[in-house]
């Protein structure tokens, strides 16, 4: 862990703020997410505070701060899906698996994110699990669907 980060950091000289985003991108690519430990290392290297690194990272939607789960759920909250009750599905889903967007369940079974539009508005509301689109979602359908992913 430490070595991977160190290797990434070593490639990014000078220690300038401008290099922060590329470092974060490499870390995300290598580790799948930005962990508190990585941020500590980066903070010491660049002498930029942890909160400010986190602030920068959360400014971009590309960064995750939790390890990916075995299955990735992306829930669409684009206009069409929103109108068709997407956020109701999201609330139900949050209640079911107990996490908010951006988080991963403790048992690492699921991670959850919201997306803006998956490009199949006709099928709204839409949920994507591991790159597979599930259309015309309802709360009941969703519950059944989740059972298929262990």
């Amino acid at each position: 862990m430490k070595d991977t980060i160190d290797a990434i950091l070593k490639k990014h000289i000078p220690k300038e703020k401008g290099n922060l985003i590329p470092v974060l991108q490499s870390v995300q690519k290598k580790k799948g997410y930005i962990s508190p430990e990585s941020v500590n290392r980066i903070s010491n290297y660049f002498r930029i505070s942890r909160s400010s690194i986190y602030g920068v990272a959360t400014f971009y939607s590309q960064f995750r701060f939790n390890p990916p789960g075995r299955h990735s759920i992306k829930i669409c909250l684009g206009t069409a899906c929103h109108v068709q009750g997407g956020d109701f599905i999201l609330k139900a889903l949050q209640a079911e698996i107990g996490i908010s967007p951006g988080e991963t369940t403790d048992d690492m079974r699921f991670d959850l994110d919201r997306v803006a539009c998956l490009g199949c508005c006709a099928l709204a509301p839409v949920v994507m699990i591991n790159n597979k689109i599930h259309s015309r979602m309802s709360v009941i359908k969703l519950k059944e669907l989740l059972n298929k992913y262990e």
Partner: protein
Amino acid sequence: MNKKTTQNISVQIDGKTINAPVGTTVLQAAQKAGIYIPTLCYLENIKPYGGCRLCIVEIKNMRAYPTACTTPIAQDMEISTKTPELQKLRREILELILSEHPYTCLICIDKNNCNEFMTTTRKVSVTTGCNFCANNGNCELQDLVEYLELTEIKYPWAYKEIKPEKNNPFYDIDYNLCILCGRCVRICNEVRYSEVLDFVQRGNSVIVGTAFGESQKDAGCEFCGACIDVCPTGSLSEKMGKWVGIPDKSIETTCVFCSVGCKMNINIKDNRIVNVGPKPGNRTNPLQLCVRGKFVPGDIMFHPERITTPLIKKENKWIEVSWDEAINFTVNKLEQYRGNQFGVISSAHESLENNYVLQKFSRKLMKSNNVDLVSSFPDKNIIKKIHEYYTHHKPANIENITNADTIFVIGSQTNLSHPIIENRIRKAAKNGKKIIVANTHDTRTSYFAEQNILYKQGEEHTFLLSLLFVLNNKDSGKLSNELKQEFNNFDIEKVFKHCGVSRQDIEKIVKSLLNSKNPVIIAGDGILINPYSIFNFNTLVNIQTILKKPETCKIIFLLNEGNFYGSTIAGLHPDLLPGFDELASEKNIKKWSDNWKTDLNNTKGLSGNEMVNNIAKDGITALFVVGDIPAHPNLAKLKFLVQQNMFLTELSEHVHVFFPITGFTETNGHIINLERKLKEIIPVTAPAKDVKTVWETISNLARAMQEKGFDYKKPEDIFSEINSFIDLSFATEEKAKKEILPVRADVSVKKKKLPVEIISENNYFNYLGNDLLELIPDMEDILGEVVSGSSSGSSSGSSSGSGSI
């Protein structure tokens, strides 16, 4: 400001001509002329942020509406601050800001009548309007709404649905009230350098937060409270005094917890401390304090366990008695123990006045020179050394740190012991100054260091010695030639090995010090609370002498309690009469006998340690303790033990009479801080009826014992007595002596043990010996691990993690 470099230019603001130096902002120029421009994100002395746009102005020949806080003035600018157009825009801006804020109460026509009927509903957990907000009545949004006469808001209130945080120690957070002015973020990063807060998330969800949403404590919050002080809304609120309402008085006094002696403002209502913080409505440039200054006074002065009546122990039970009874009881006993069997041990948190009267009582009336302070210094002579040093080198002031080009911090946990010193170190680091930190373990200061040295535990003296050796070899002055003789046959490699620091690292430090124009050396507990404290002191002074920068190189000795130096100059030292006059000199005995119209006993005084040890041999039979001393089995053998304190402690078990004592916010007096400046402490609340100061207690005792010379009516009487004998401005002394300090480097490297028998935890978080972690649960929360962790990991093992009396 420097006259030569600043050039004044003139501008017109609202038709008024104003002269101000180049670089002044429109806002500053207007404020200087007494012209009000509304602001929300602006903070005095911090880089302007230009975020809220409420300070917009019109400037002739400039397009759009520049923000006054970010626009510098230019010659002949014509500025308008209050055109109808501007006010309209400001109202719109404020409306937008408030659209995400519980604004109903703000624009309610009944708002002024509502307050008095709503007192209980205020404690609901979610703030839905001013009447449910801790900020009510002291809120910049309310002020702005009033100023801009905003009576309606066209947008519906969008509640942010952020869970209020109520689990943090000392303060609550409710970001639903946050208007994103960024003051907290900026003060935490740019003034306190704690770097806990930042804006996180994006778009609509932007909010102030910590990394990964950690709790404040996990994110490294130092609980200085600066963010609360500057927050214009109720988003950040202190738990204590939260629902007390608007203070009716604010009084400035001096913090005595550590020797920085910060100025503090205390807000009071109905003789209770509401909080320590800026006066109501005065947020943009608050005094900077640390967690102790900010949160302790309110918690401790009104602590439920505080003792507020005199107590006498009868058949192992405490009986509450009147002052008269307690005084009579004490007088009867004390009469039997005059002479060398009596002793006084006091606290360096007490004022100059109190400690002066206390030692005078012991020496003049009780005829005993057994007076001492509870301290962690294994060698009492260190304070004498420091005093001597001050007579040759003007003591540093705190701003010397900010201005130094190189700062060398040795053996100090400055962020805990002297946080405002730490703050200046960090400020210097951020300004690109060179920071060198040396300790046995990494500290928070290490993060700011260019060079971070770790030496082995208990090896401060060998570390300093190797520095001296390397530095000395590069010099050929009188002193270094003498030293070279001493260093003859000196095995430097062995010393490097001893302290665990490489020659390379030592060379690098020496180089930095030699290249520095005005270095500051900060010596902490690791140096002073050390069996080699005197050796370390001498080595440091030698280093300074060889650096040949007597006026610009400063050594700062970090004494812990607020009034250690002041208490010693007041005479609370077994070997020293007031004014650092050696007791061993007959001349001084005569001088003080004359001063006090008495015949002083010339028997050498015992230190606190010796007193406790001598109890066993019946050398000491009666003790008067102000504050607390570590428990010791001998104490049970005392014939008579008096304690004056705010709380019962472990010691109280052996105590016969207990007098309740005032805290520093309840009495007048002075302390002398580490800059050797006299600072005034001022009463902010009246003590409970039966709580008295040390000087009142002692004067009562002395009068009951028919002794003259204790007819003080008020602390000022004592102060003028001290001042008539001792020059507390130190003006004469600086002129008098100028010869070089006699320094001897003892170059032998032997292992020494602390010459102490009674070991107590060296805890910065105590007041009058009372453990603040025990008394204040929130303090335990934030420091529990840190304090125990630091003492085990600290410099000289059992030595620096511990102290003696």
